[in-house]
């Protein structure tokens, strides 16, 4: 059957005009509920944009612990009358997932101003329950395995990556230590105290070869952004392109590459930029091995002489990578982790990030997540430009 392609219609530009973020607090010390965290981040993003809940006609949320509530429940609690609603369940890929869909909604005229908010608070055994019941695969395959968690899975993936590319613990440590340096400038980060390579190498083993600082710390917190068809003078970021590639290999590969390699050609084609134009880059960092996998997919890290190339890349600061400290230092606020990188890059592009990143013009945010057996099955990316 011959398919007749429609000519592209006139689409509206989309702007990110406000950001909000709570402090990230280790879950055992956190005092606020998920609903309180989401509300605080939402209010801060709206204040940043000069808007109120009454100005919104769209809402997207992502949270593991907001259950049994959904976006419509928050719309009622917050007095929003939405014409567009979304609940994303894609964990570390949820931030870009919500942006990808919200961008299309605003471009096509389904909505004018959308609040995107995500975060989590884990009380008691909430996090253990989440891991054990993450999906049917986890529930049926891993429930009877003592000590089984994402750390176990990514320990084996990291071992393989070390063997394939000749990497050592110090290579991963250099990445973790560099991110901790960035975290010192992030007032929301859970862990800001300087970390040396010696500290990293001498930390307790969790699941060999992973030690404490390789495993993303679980925290409570929330992030929010406001997307709009209207530009906000002086502090807007243009959403140029957002794409996804999920389940690229049916979980039947080694997990050392992600769907990002298939996403980026679309991003570059649609935006007119290349990786050489990216000033600030957020790479999803639940584990250092996944940062390295994505840097390879992006084309910043060649697959030969990886150790030396990684050292050169980190030293060059071209681009600035995970300039909020990433999740490895700021903490992983459950599904909220998917939006943390978006806030990081948006703030860098509006001179609200670390001083070194001021003046940055173009940023890329990479999402990754949803372990369906051995590694994440979701990948996506959004490119943002100072407007």
């Amino acid at each position, binding site marked *: 059957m011959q398919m007749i392609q429609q000519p592209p219609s006139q689409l509206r530009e989309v702007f990110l005009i406000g950001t909000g973020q709570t402090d990230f607090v280790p879950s055992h010390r956190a005092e606020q509920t998920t609903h309180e965290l989401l509300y605080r981040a939402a209010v801060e993003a709206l204040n940043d944009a000069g808007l109120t809940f009454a100005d919104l006609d769209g809402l997207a949320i992502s949270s593991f612990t907001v259950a049994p509530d959904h976006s419509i429940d928050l719309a009622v609690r917050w007095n929003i009358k939405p014409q567009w609603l979304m609940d994303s369940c894609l964990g570390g890929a949820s931030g870009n997932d919500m942006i990808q869909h919200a961008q299309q909604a605003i471009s096509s005229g389904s909505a004018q101003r959308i609040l995107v908010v995500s975060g989590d608070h884990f009380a008691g055994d909430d996090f253990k329950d989440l891991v054990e019941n993450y999906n049917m695969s986890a529930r049926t395959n*891993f429930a009877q395995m003592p*000590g089984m968690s994402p750390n176990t899975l990514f320990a084996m993936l990291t071992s393989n990556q070390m063997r394939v590319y000749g990497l050592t613990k110090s290579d991963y440590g250099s990445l973790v230590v560099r991110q901790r340096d960035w975290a010192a400038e992030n007032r929301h980060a859970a862990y800001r105290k300087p970390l040396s390579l010696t500290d990293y190498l001498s930390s307790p083993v969790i*699941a060999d070869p992973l030690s404490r600082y390789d495993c993303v710390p679980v925290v409570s917190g929330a992030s929010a952004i406001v997307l709009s068809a209207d530009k906000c003078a002086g502090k807007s970021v243009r959403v140029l392109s957002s794409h996804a590639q999920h389940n690229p290999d049916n*979980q039947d590969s080694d997990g050392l590459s992600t769907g990002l390699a298939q996403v980026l050609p679309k991003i570059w084609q649609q935006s007119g930029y290349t990786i050489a134009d990216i000033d600030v880059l957020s790479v999803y960092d639940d584990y250092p091995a996944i940062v390295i996998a994505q840097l390879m997919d992006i084309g910043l890290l060649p697959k030969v002489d990886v150790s030396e190339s990684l050292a050169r890349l980190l030293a060059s600061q071209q681009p600035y990578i995970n300039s909020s400290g990433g999740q490895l230092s700021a903490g992983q606020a459950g599904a909220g982790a998917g939006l943390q990188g978006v806030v990081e890059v948006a703030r860098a592009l509006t001179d609200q990030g670390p001083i070194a990143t001021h003046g940055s013009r173009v940023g890329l945010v990479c999402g990754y997540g949803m372990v369906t057996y051995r590694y994440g099955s979701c990948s996506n990316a959004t490119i943002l430009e100072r407007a």
Partner: protein
Amino acid sequence: MMTDCTKCHWSGMPARETCPRCHNSQWGDVDALAGTIVETTKVTRSFGGDLDPAQPYALIEVKAGGFRITHNAHELEVGTSVTVDQAMNINPIKNLDA
């Protein structure tokens, strides 16, 4: 219960309705699978608590296709040829040439 694709014998996880290799949708029961250990780890700490004893795990590449994660009670090394039984225990396959 352990199953494989009745057509190409792919037998990985997670469970699925359609074989990712040949797209067959018929699955049959198998008593054991042959494979090779491709990764191992030993978990010493989990959910904020120490594990005593530490728990060893292995990733098995199934000879007929697919991957399975199992407990590695005998702490077998990467490269060891093994069988996986229905209880997901692994045992080394003795090298008859040795």
